[in-house]
């Protein structure tokens, strides 16, 4: 649990897993969701996009994952496997926690033993050991999110996409999951692209924060986050954290008006 570990590449030094150049997205009804978006995500980098609701943040992830094509520009994903954590846990209600966590490995045709092992390891990593046989309906919102995280972890993805995964949770659960996520990120060293509308969540989790403006969405500002791997909840109450959050907040308001 506590030992964060193996050699973690410093931010930005891992291989590039996602590259956006001048990406734009217009919907058939004429709405322009994104315009001129440039961004890179490397392994070992936790990039968060913060922006107001409806600014096209989710569209960004849908393009990154290939669920939806960009209208123009290039969006290249260079990851063998991706993890995508949706706004809600999207667990299959008829499968137990263990079976849900095994789903993606099954879809990728992993062997039975490998699937089983990966699922058990992932459940242990997210702290759901002992809940294997429960059905999703018996879990709290936070536990469902953990199961959803574990499901993606079984694939050991190079790129992790998070679409406001903790938005529906209460603050305490949310903060706890933030800590878990930081721990997982440092243990695994994947590249992450995280979407949120919470400035403090963005600053707390990331190595880099991108501020997105309202429609059409584009990146208006970029902040490197100086904090290291040893982030604890107390970090939120330090002057450095407050100062950075203030700058991000300010950029957000400037971009929004």
């Amino acid at each position, binding site marked *: 649990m506590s030992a964060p570990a193996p050699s973690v590449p410093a931010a930005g030094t891992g291989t590039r897993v996602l590259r956006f150049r001048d990406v734009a997205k217009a919907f058939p009804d004429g709405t322009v969701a994104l315009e001129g978006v440039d961004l890179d995500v490397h392994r070992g980098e936790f990039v968060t996009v913060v922006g107001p609701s409806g600014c096209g943040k989710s569209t960004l992830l849908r393009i990154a994952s*290939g*669920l939806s094509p960009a209208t123009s520009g290039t969006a290249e994903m260079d990851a063998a496997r991706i993890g*995508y954590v*949706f706004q*809600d846990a*999207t667990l*299959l*209600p*008829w499968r137990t926690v263990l079976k849900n966590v095994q789903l993606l490995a099954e879809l990728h045709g992993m062997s039975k033993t490998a699937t089983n092992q990966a699922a058990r390891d992932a459940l242990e990593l997210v702290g759901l050991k002992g809940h294997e046989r429960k059905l999703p309906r018996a879990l709290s919102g936070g536990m469902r999110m953990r199961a959803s995280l574990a499901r993606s972890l079984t694939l050991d993805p190079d790129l992790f996409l998070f679409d406001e995964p903790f938005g529906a949770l209460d603050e305490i659960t949310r903060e706890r999951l933030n800590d878990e996520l930081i721990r997982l990120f440092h243990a695994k060293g994947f590249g992450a692209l995280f979407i949120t509308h919470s400035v403090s969540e963005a600053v707390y989790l990331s190595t880099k924060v991108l501020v997105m403006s309202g429609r059409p969405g584009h990146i208006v500002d970029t902040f490197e986050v100086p904090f290291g791997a040893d982030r604890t909840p107390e970090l939120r109450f330090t002057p450095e954290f407050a100062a950075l959050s203030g700058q991000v907040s300010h950029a957000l308001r400037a971009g929004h008006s």
Partner: protein
Amino acid sequence: MSAPVRTRTTEETAVTTTLPEAPAAAPALGTGGTAPLVRRRGAGVTRWAAPLAVFAGLIGLWYAITYLVLEPSKRFLMPPPQDVLAAFTDGPTMERIGEALAQTVKVTFTGLAIAIVLGMAWAVLMSQAKVAERSLFPYAVALQCIPILALVPLIAFWFGYGFPARVIVCVLIALFPIVSNTLFGLQSVDRGMHELFDLHGASRTTRLLKLQLPAAMPAIFAGFRISAGLSVVGAIVGDVFFKQGQAGLGIVLDNFRNRIQGAELFATILVAAALGFAVFALFGWLGRLAVGRWYDQSRDAA
């Protein structure tokens, strides 16, 4: 069709059973803040008293019609309850009804099994492509709209008057709820789940087997339950019309009517009703067995 009734009973039971366990909840449930204890005891009694009173009232009405409305010479039209009960103790009558019941059960379940296989295959096919749905769904609707009775002579004309013809009537009558419920279930899968399967390159078959069919099970079983009841109707209707071959309940009903055996006719009707109810209950139970673990059936609207 009969489902709304069922849903209401479930809710009622749920409310009444929670009352004794949760006194705190009683005022919230609208029983008022006064003397919840008395109210709860009262609720326990009414729970049985009201249905019993209705039942007693119906039996009373039956007696009234038999003895007060009908002249003695016409009493065969509605024999009193004790005569109907007596028919149940009459050996030869019961043997006839029993054999007919066995035959009807055979037709019902054969028809239902075929309707399940055909209906699900039809729905799965339609779920795979919009064009398939557009070309095939109108026929499912047609099946539902054409009065099956109008087709019965044609079925006799083509397939004779035996077992196959009866099964065909059953299939035609039971098919639509299975087709429409299965299709509805397959199509109502959450978009997020579909995207999860998209992301990880699931094939059509994998998606069908691991996502759509399991997700559709509650709707499918609701369809089975409706079709099971209809299948009994089909078996008896076919029987009444075809009148040949081994007698099912329909033929027996018709014979008793011809011979003015009112009590036996009523007894047979009760047996037919019991069969319909039993089949409906059987599929309700199977449904709970299959999906009750994860699906809350009180939300069941179909």
